[in-house]
């Protein structure tokens, strides 16, 4: 076992070196710049066979990735925030054309006002683009998720693009101990890319990107939606296989002390790591607190989440972005839908927190869980949605 200290960005660049994609097209953006910067060094040193395309924008980066994938190449890129936003129109096209591109995404707040630090507003803004979305708690998970994302995206029952998202600076630049697997083991796990078609086969000419109007567009979008439904099963299968291979299993989400919990905190990304300490401290004080860490946001595991939380009467949802829908932020909105469909009506309080990289401390998460336990059944919007940590 090889334990080394790496930042999240270094871990993702290392995963990319071991994946050894055929093509990468990228444009630098803070805090994801290092991923491609380090990877460019691997290309320069001949450690990978990747064709690295340095393009003039993220719009071009994703366009080039789409062309390369349609040609039959295993293709990856990395971006963040405004970069992901600049890819927006291509994100839908990549999913609609069923091109299994993988992005090492680093979560950063969107302008304006301009900010380079972590929140989930960037990927939440692109949550319905048809991409599979995996959140990582630490550098190890960023590395593990990126390797698994290749298999998930390329699975014939799924065939959709995927990104792994990693909290900007907190994970991307924070150094931690992590385990790196042998190159051959990673190569064996990801297998060779078997594209379902290639534009470069002159024995079978084909068209990608034809106009698709009233008669066919609806059917093609329906088929892509089916890929996302299959992804829920495939992600779990690959997570189990990953565990059998490398000793670290992954599912749709992870839980801590949830069995007898009277209050559950639902969180994604690095906050889930902070919450482990908060749950432990509360348990020592006799508070029945539990954690549900959501790993997979797309596909959204609604039935599984409702099942896992069905016995918990009080739920604190940690939303590191705001939906500006005057109702609740993205994670809470979708979780409440899951509860409704399962016939459950727990007390759900949505905590919008950490926008623009504002820190969240484990003592704050303890306060949040205690407050959720004690709060009356929320009536008006102000008691259902709490802007946690904002000055007012």
């Amino acid at each position, binding site marked *: 076992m090889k334990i080394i200290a790496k930042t999240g960005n270094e871990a993702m660049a290392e995963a990319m070196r071991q994946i050894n994609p055929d093509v990468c097209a990228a444009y630098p953006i803070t805090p994801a710049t290092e991923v491609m910067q380090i990877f460019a060094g691997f290309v320069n040193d001949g450690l990978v066979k990747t064709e690295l395309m340095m393009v003039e924008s993220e719009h071009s980066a994703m366009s080039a990735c789409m062309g390369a994938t349609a040609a039959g190449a295993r293709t990856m890129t990395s971006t963040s925030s405004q970069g992901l936003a600049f890819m927006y129109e291509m994100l839908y096209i990549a999913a609609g*054309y069923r091109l299994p591109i993988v992005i090492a995404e680093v979560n950063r707040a969107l302008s304006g006002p301009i900010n380079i630090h972590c929140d989930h507003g960037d990927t939440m803004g692109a949550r319905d683009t048809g991409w599979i979305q995996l959140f990582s708690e630490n550098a190890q998970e960023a590395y593990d998720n990126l390797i698994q994302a290749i298999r998930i995206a390329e699975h014939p029952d799924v*065939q959709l693009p995927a990104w792994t998202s990693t909290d900007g600076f907190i994970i991307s630049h924070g150094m931690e101990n992590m385990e790196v697997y042998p190159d051959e083991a990673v190569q064996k796990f990801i297998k060779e890319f078997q594209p379902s078609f290639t534009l470069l086969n002159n024995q079978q000419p*084909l*068209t990608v990107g*034809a106009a698709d109007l009233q008669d066919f567009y609806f059917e093609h979008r329906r088929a892509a939606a089916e*890929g996302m439904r299959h992804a829920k099963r495939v992600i779990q299968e690959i997570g189990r296989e990953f565990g059998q291979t490398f000793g670290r299993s992954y599912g749709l989400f992870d839980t801590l002390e949830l069995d007898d919990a009277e209050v559950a905190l639902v969180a994604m990304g690095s906050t889930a790591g902070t919450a482990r300490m908060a749950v432990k401290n509360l348990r020592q004080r006799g508070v029945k607190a539990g954690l549900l860490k959501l790993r997979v946001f797309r596909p959204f595991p609604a039935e599984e989440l409702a099942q896992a939380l069905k016995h918990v009467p009080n739920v604190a949802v940690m939303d590191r972005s705001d939906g500006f829908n005057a109702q609740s932020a993205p994670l809470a909105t979708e979780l409440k839908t899951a509860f409704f469909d399962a016939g459950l009506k727990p007390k759900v309080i949505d905590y919008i927190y950490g926008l623009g990289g504002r820190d969240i401390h484990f003592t704050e998460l303890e306060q949040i869980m205690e407050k959720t336990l004690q709060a009356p059944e929320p009536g008006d919007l102000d008691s259902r949605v709490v802007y946690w940590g904002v000055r007012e």
Partner: protein
Amino acid sequence: MKDVKVDCGRLMDWQELAKGCLIPEPATSLNFKTGDWRSQRPVWSEDKCIQCLACWISCPDGAIMVKDEKMVGMNFDYCKGCGICAAVCPSKASAIEMVREEK
């Protein structure tokens, strides 16, 4: 590319379509008869035609049929009745005239 079919004559269900709006065969546009919404049709007078082929080079749909370097008529499967052939036909010949399409 197994289990993929193209059938332009029938609207397929979503489960039958090639993934990703892919058209897995070349030249399928030939199956799409664009001539069925023509409101005017060109009428060609072979005796007036000077075989300059201005119509052939100008037709946006390749609907002017040529055999042995001679114009031999229009392909009404694809002719949309745009009238460009009639407009470019030299005035001394006036071999193409647009008339109302009668169905």
